């Protein structure tokens, strides 16, 4: 049976199941697969620039979710040498 509503091809490893993972899925995959996001490695400034550009481009990220999404991405996909 095919999933209704949202059918998204995704990366082959699970997202780390820490708080916020559902937000990353729900707010990002309407436009692109998770691979786009999770292959990045950025520092705090880099991730903030990316997420803010996504919001500018129409990502369904309400202001109250921005911080938690950034925390999640920085926790799991951080470049230690990144700004």
């Amino acid at each position, binding site marked *: *049976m*095919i*999933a*209704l*509503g*949202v*059918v*998204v*091809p*995704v*990366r*082959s*490893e*699970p*997202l*780390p*199941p820490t708080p916020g*993972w*559902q*937000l990353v*899925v*729900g707010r990002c*995959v*309407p*436009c*692109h*697969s998770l*691979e*786009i996001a999770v*292959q*990045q*490695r*950025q*520092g705090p400034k*880099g991730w903030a*620039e*990316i997420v803010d550009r996504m919001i*500018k*481009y*129409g*990502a369904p990220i309400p202001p109250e979710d921005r911080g938690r999404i950034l925390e999640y991405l920085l926790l799991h996909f951080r*470049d230690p*040498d*990144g*700004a």
Partner: protein
Amino acid sequence: MRQPISPAISRRGFLVITGSAAAAAGLPKLASAQTAPPAAIPGKERLIVRSPRPINLEARLADLTSYHTPEGVFFVRNNYDLPAIDAAGWSVKVEGEVDQPLVLRLDDLRKLPAVAHDVTLECAGNGRSFHRPRASGIQWEHGAVGTARWKGVRLADVLAMARPRAGAAHVAFDGADKAPTPQAPDFVRSVPLWKAVEAHTMLAVEMNGQPIPQLHGGPVRVVVPGFVGSASIKWLERIAVRTEEFDGAFMARSYRAPRAEDDKETYSLQSLEVKSLVIGPADGARLPAGKVTVWGWAWSGEGELTGLDVSTDGGQTWKPGRFAGRWDRYSWRKWEYDWDAAAGAHVVMARATDSLGRIQPSTRARNPLGYRWNVIHSVKVDVA
């Protein structure tokens, strides 16, 4: 039944979210946990999936063994989803700084002189994954490059029909692909007029003897040889002749890099860098001692290749390789080097030079979007 906290994900599979987890994600609640994995992209199973949506697929170096890259191992780069285009109904508008705006259909293109060129396309971000600190974008390694014989008509002949005005200086291309939201920028890029009218720049309808597949921009795409791949707009639907460089996001924000290491200013990318790859031996190969022909590909955008040097000692000493086989003005060239391999661990490297005075560097200054990676490629080999 309690739902798993992590999404269950199968290789190339669908995200499975059910019940309360779905509600928590703000997604429709699903009746069943069962889904089927999507079919692999037909004909592209050998490529590395950098992302399924938008589709970005990278070639493995071991598959880049022939001068014309077969469709099955030709990389695919997209910023957005594929449009569906009916070839029979296709047309392109030519407008802007022209005395004769036009709408051309495939039959109109067929009346123009046919041209064919071997052209190597490379993504501007090829090699991005190697930048340190890390750069944002698709994390290509070496394989966002491929060569095809492209057949079509000269863009110059199309533009001549439209009669560009005296102030015309740039030509913008708009394809049928659309952003997923109204706020995201349309994928539109421009090239300077000198490049648009250069004899090799074309509107292509065939790739390696076949109508261009949908994934590669059919029925009609631009091919701007020697420029970064994003100039070669797919699913062409509009050509706008302009007095200024196009100023949308894909010219003004992305596809830009500094010219020199300490530059604060960036420029909109045009020519590809001078670059080469070692294809044989593969990284990590084990070889018997004795004679082996090391080989690979080299290319140089607007430059013409002037040499390809090879090192088998990690860059301490360099010897000239030779070019071999067919090539075209804007295609890659095969290079070869005969190596008498002695036992031990070796690092084999290739370094190309071109007529613009460029030489591949051993390091590349990082630029935030990860372009211009043409650092000397090295492979580790163990000789028994």
